[in-house]
C-alpha cells in the first residue's frame, strides 16, 4: 500500500479507504486557480482567489447572493476572462469555453431539437466527426453515429433514463432533463464539470434523486482510484442549499466578502473537507449540523469579520489525515 506523506494529496475518504492519490505534477490538478481577481468598473468582485481541485473531488461552492459565485464560474468556464490571475484545467490555461470544462445549468439548456439520446451523443458527434465526414463519407459517419448513440443509451441507462432515449426535452420532466444534461456533460469526460445550481428548479423528491446520482458518481470515482485509474467525475457545484453542499460534496468552499479586507472583493473564506456519504447511507442531517452552523457563520454572517484564512484548512486537514493514515 502506498502511504500518504507530505507530498501526497488524497481525498479524505480515499485515504480512509487507503487508496491515496499521489500528485506527480501541477497538471495533476483537475482545476487550478492562481491569484484570480475580477473587477467590474470600479467594483472589485473577486479578490485573489486561489483554489486547487484534484481529479475525483466533488467540491460544493456556497456564498451569499451577489458574492461573485457566477463570476467565478464564468471565469472557469472561459466565457468571462478574469481581470487578473490564471485558471488552469489539467495544466492547460483556460482561454475560452473548451472541452476540458463541462457545464450543467440550472435551466438544463438542452437542445430542444434533439432527443434525450441525441442530446447526450451530441458532444461525441461534435468531437469525433467533422462536417466533411457527414457529407463525403456518409457510411463511415453513420457507423460512427450508431456507435455514439449506443454509448449515449448506455449512459442514459446509468442515470435511470433508459426508457426516455427517444423523448424530446419538451416531453420530459425537470428532473429527467437535468439528468440528461448531466449525462451530456459527463459523457465527454471533461477534466471538470461545473454544476450551476443544478437542482435549484426541482422539487424535493427530484433533488434527492439527483443528489443520489452524484453520490453514485463519487462511488465510481473511488472504484476508479482503487483500480489505479483516473477518476472520471470531478465536479465543482454551486448551490444555495447548505445541507445539499455537505451531503453531496467531499469538500465545501465558501465565497464571501465577510472578512477583514472584504471591501477588496469576495474571497474564499471557507475551505474544509466534509463527511462523505454513500448512496445507501440514510440521509442523516444531524451528522453535519455542526459543520453547517460553522459554514453559516463563516460565510454568511455579516457581523462575523475574521481573517480570510481562518477556515481555509482543507489542505492542512488533508495532510494531517494523510499522516494519520501513514502512521496507521
Amino acid at each position, binding site marked *: 500500500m502506498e502511504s500518504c506523506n507530505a507530498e501526497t494529496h488524497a481525498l479524505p475518504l480515499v485515504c480512509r479507504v487507503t487508496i491515496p492519490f499521489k500528485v506527480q505534477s501541477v497538471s495533476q490538478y483537475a482545476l487550478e486557480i492562481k491569484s484570480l481577481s475580477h473587477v467590474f468598473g470600479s467594483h472589485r468582485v473577486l479578490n485573489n482567489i486561489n483554489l486547487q481541485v484534484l481529479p475525483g473531488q466533488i467540491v460544493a461552492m456556497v456564498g451569499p447572493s451577489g458574492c461573485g459565485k457566477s463570476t467565478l464560474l464564468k471565469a472557469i468556464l472561459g*466565457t468571462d476572462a478574469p481581470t487578473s490571475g490564471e485558471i488552469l484545467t489539467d495544466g492547460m490555461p483556460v482561454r475560452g469555453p473548451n472541452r476540458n470544462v463541462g457545464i450543467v445549468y440550472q435551466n438544463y439548456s438542452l437542445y430542444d431539437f434533439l432527443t434525450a439520446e441525441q442530446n447526450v451523443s451530441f458532444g461525441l458527434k461534435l468531437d469525433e466527426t467533422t462536417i466533411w465526414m457527414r457529407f463525403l463519407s456518409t457510411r463511415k459517419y453513420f457507423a460512427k453515429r450508431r456507435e455514439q448513440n449506443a454509448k449515449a443509451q448506455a449512459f442514459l441507462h446509468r442515470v435511470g433514463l433508459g426508457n426516455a432515449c427517444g423523448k424530446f426535452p419538451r416531453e420530459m420532466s425537470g428532473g429527467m432533463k437535468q439528468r440528461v444534461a448531466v449525462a451530456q*456533460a459527463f459523457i465527454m469526460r471533461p477534466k471538470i464539470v461545473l454544476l450551476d445550481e443544478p437542482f435549484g428548479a426541482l422539487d424535493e423528491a427530484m433533488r434527492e434523486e439527483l443528489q443520489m446520482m452524484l453520490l453514485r458518481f463519487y462511488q465510481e470515482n473511488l472504484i476508479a482510484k482503487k483500480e489505479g485509474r483516473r477518476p472520471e467525475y470531478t465536479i465543482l457545484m454551486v448551490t444555495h442549499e447548505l445541507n445539499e453542499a455537505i451531503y453531496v460534496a467531499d469538500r465545501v468552499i465558501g465565497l464571501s466578502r465577510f472578512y477583514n479586507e472584504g471591501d477588496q472583493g469576495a474571497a474564499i473564506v471557507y475551505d474544509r473537507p466534509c463527511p462523505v456519504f454513500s448512496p445507501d447511507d440514510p440521509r442523516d442531517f444531524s451528522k453535519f449540523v455542526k459543520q453547517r452552523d460553522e459554514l453559516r457563520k463563516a460565510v454568511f454572517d455579516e457581523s462575523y469579520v475574521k481573517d480570510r484564512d481562518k477556515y481555509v484548512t482543507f489542505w492542512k486537514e488533508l495532510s494531517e489525515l494523510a499522516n494519520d493514515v501513514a502512521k496507521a
Partner: protein
Amino acid sequence: MIRRSVPNWLFWLLSIGGIAVLLTCYELVSARQTRINPLQTTIPSFEKLSEGLRQIFRPQGLPDNPKPPMFWVDIRATLWRLVLGMGAGVGLSIVVGVMMGAYRWIEAPLRPVFMFLSKIPPTAMMPIYFAVVGTDQKMFASMVALGIFFSMTQSIYQAVRQDVTDEGINKAYTLGASEFEIIYDVIWKQILPKVIDSIRLQIGPAMVFLLAAEMVVGNAGLGYQIRMQSRILNMSVVYVYLAILAIIGLAAEWSLATLRRTLCPWFVE
C-alpha cells in the same frame, strides 16, 4: 362563455355553413344585378364564372398556330418569378440574419440600416427597380427578393437572438463544437421552424409585390392578366384568377406547415 369548446361536428358544420352562406349571398347579389342589367359582368353568376374557367384553359392563337392556354402562360410566369425571388430573398435573409444574430460586429452596422430600409414599402420602390434593374425577369425577382429581404432578415435575426441562448452556445463550445458547427448544428437547427414560419408569412407580401409589378410592367403573369381582363370588364376571368391565387396561397401554407411538422417534430407553437 368566451372560448367555450363546441363539439367537432358542430364546428365543421358551421365552417361549411360559412362557405355556403358566402356562395349563396354572392349568387343572390349576382342575380339581382343581372335583373337590373342583363349585360352586367361586374358580379358574374356561377354559370358565367364556369365560362371564365373554360376560357382560361382554352388554347390561344389561330387554329393552325395554337398557343398554350392563358392560364399556363400566366401561372408559369408568376410562379417562376415567385420561386426565383423568394429563393434569392430567403437564402440571402437566412445568411445575413443568422450572421447578424451570431456576430455582434456584423449586427452593429447592419441593424440600423435594416431598420430604416424595412420601413420603405417595396411597391413604392418600383421606379427605382425599373431604373436600376430594368423591366425583365430580373426586375420581378429582385422586387420580390428585396421586398421580403429586410423584414425576413429581421425576423431571422430576432429568432437567433431569442431562441438560441448563450448557455446553449457556451455548452456547445464545451462539447467541442467549432464556430461553423455551432452555426449549423445549434443555431440553424434551433431556428429552422421559425425560418419556415417566416417564409410562410412572407408569401403574402411577396405575392403583393409581384402582382403589383406584373400589373405595371408585365407581359404575362397572373397580375398582368387580372389587369388586362379587368380593363375589358371580363370579371369572370378575374374572379377565377383571384380564386387561383387563394388556392396557391393555401397550398403554399399547407406545404410549409407539413414541411415544418416533418423537419421539426420537436417544435410546438
